[in-house]
């Protein structure tokens, strides 16, 4: 397995004592949420003594006991279905789908029940469930271990869909997701699990339903989320060498979509592109491009571009580098505009 190391970030924060990995920040968030609220429970495949295949739940079963953190039978619909029942009965389950594509057996429970129970019962039965899903590629995973399935979830009313790109957001967004009375699909970019950065535990960076401008610029707005935030930042750094000023927005929340933050930036720069790993056709970027265009058309100097995965199944490990959007591919796309 090849691991996509982020050498720049790792080097920059190596001295900072509070620096933790994104996976470690998620682990802290789970531990802190469980300490504060007895109704928070964690279960799924291998999340107990092993600590999850990405070690996100490392040490939790030892600390909180196996009646609050436990290994379930290996069945994703069963995990989501029982979490729904628990949430109907006062619990706040945080469950793990081991890999993106392994969430598909739970598709019915998520789309037909988790998303709809509140509406169906006019608010009588709320389902504060967090479904953690490690997603996207870049780790040399074999087939079914690298999907970006966000559009399946964002197309489902009733679900909140978020994805952090850094340890601080990982910590706070997971805390906020667990506190939310709505079901949250929490997408964890697995290529970023080992990224290290400082986490400020005193105040959350932003509410769960807001995007963030993480680099200011004047010429182009790049809209990215999860694993592609690094791609966007790399592209912005390269573009600077060519005197192109790029603003980068980390969307953070995919549903709801933060029209205000994105609209404000796009009206300023007049050009935008959205980057994701998922296949382009019918992907989340299509919604972003359409939505941002509809609301900001007369402020736009050019059509909104999508830099996405090709419309092919996610490739085998040795071919994924040709599939995944790169900073160079982003800049090449921006070159297709008439400037």
């Amino acid at each position: 397995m090849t691991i996509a190391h982020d050498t720049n970030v790792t080097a920059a924060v190596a001295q900072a004592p509070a620096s933790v990995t994104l996976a470690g920040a998620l682990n802290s968030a789970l531990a802190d949420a469980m300490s504060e609220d007895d109704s928070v429970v964690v279960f799924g495949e291998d999340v107990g003594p092993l600590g999850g295949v990405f070690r996100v739940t490392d040490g939790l079963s030892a600390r909180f006991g196996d009646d609050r953190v436990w290994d379930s039978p290996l069945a994703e619909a069963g995990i989501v279905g029982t979490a729904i029942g628990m949430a109907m009965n006062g619990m706040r389950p945080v469950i793990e789908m081991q890999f993106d594509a392994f969430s598909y057996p739970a598709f019915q429970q998520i789309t037909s029940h988790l998303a709809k129970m509140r509406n169906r019962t006019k608010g009588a039965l709320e389902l504060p469930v967090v479904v953690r899903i490690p997603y996207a590629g870049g780790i040399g995973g074999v087939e079914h271990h690298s999907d970006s399935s966000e559009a399946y979830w964002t197309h489902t009313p009733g679900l909140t869909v978020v994805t952090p790109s850094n340890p601080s957001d990982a910590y706070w967004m997971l805390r906020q997701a667990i506190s939310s009375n709505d079901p949250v699909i929490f997408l964890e970019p697995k290529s970023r699990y080992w990224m290290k950065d400082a986490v400020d535990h005193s105040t959350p960076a932003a509410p769960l339903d807001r995007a963030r401008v993480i680099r200011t610029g004047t010429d182009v707005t790049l809209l990215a989320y999860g694993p592609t935030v690094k791609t966007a930042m790399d592209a912005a750094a390269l573009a600077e060498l060519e005197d192109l000023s790029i603003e980068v927005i980390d969307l953070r929340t995919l549903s709801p979509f933060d029209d205000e933050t994105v609209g404000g930036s796009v009206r300023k720069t007049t050009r935008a592109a959205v980057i994701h790993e998922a296949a382009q056709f019918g992907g989340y970027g299509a919604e972003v491009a359409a939505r941002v265009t509809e609301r900001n058309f007369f402020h736009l100097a050019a059509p909104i571009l999508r830099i996405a995965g090709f419309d092919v199944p996610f490739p085998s490990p040795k071919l994924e580098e040709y599939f995944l959007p790169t900073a160079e591919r982003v800049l090449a796309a921006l070159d297709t505009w008439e400037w």
Partner: protein
Amino acid sequence: MPEAGILLDLYRRMVLARRFDVQVTALTRQGRLATYPSGLGQEACEIAAAAALADDDWLFPTYRDSIALLARGVKAVEILSFFRGDWHSGFDPKQRRIAPQSTPLATQALHAVGFATASKMRHESVATLAFLGDGATSEGEAHEAFNFAAVWQAPTVFVVQNNGYAISVPFSKQSRARTLADKAIGYGMPGHFVDGNDVAAMYAVITDALDRARNGGGPTLIEGLTYRMEAHTNSDDPSRYRGDEEVERWRVLDPIARIESYLIREGALTEKLRAEIADAAEQLAAETRDAMNESPHLDPLELFDHVYATPRAALAEQRDYLATELESSEARHLS
């Protein structure tokens, strides 16, 4: 054998349920309801389960289990607002401790297991009961529910009403198992194959299983062998897949006639009492008709009100859009 008072109560509720079912099927044929999956013929399973549940227990029903809801105290209009098309569920689940009637098969069985497990974790003496049909046992989620319940020793009772058909598909095309109750062995839980048209037997077996669940004994799988006397719904045509002879064979085994003749023979059911119960059933039918004669007040703007606990700007925009559209169409009507 449950005592006579209990049997009389079961009989009474079955008679009311039958009358309700017949009335609602008639209303559906008249076009008052969008659809209605009838439980006619399955009253022994439905009523035994509803009666065996304690107040704090929860029921996880399917779309076919309306009469169990009725027996557990849900008002006719609250049950039927779903089938009339007012909203996807019409009653307060917490008030009656009943989950919404599930349309996707077997999915609610997992909810029952999770719910029961949460109660067990808090050391509460609460059990859950999930209804399934024979067709639903072919679904993967039935298997997952049975397995999770057994592994976690969840206080859940699964009542499979084997009514012979999944819409048009007979049981012989659904499973090669000798009985569906046999499947319990593979999960490591007790399984009981019961005459599903014998309300006394169903009540006794379900009561025992619920007691066992509440006392830490884990889950039980119960198969009640019964028969769906009506079509799947009003849009189904059973003549395409089953003969009258088969239906008539089952009519002889009618669950209400059986308990009624037993109670009469035992002297527990007098003619006076039988007439009183019949009157109550007519009263319920009349109330049901009246309720369905009233047009429901539906507010289209409520579409937006319950989707999320956390308000969304985009939904508020769409709500405003619909409100404006409604106002202008009202204005057009007035002009």
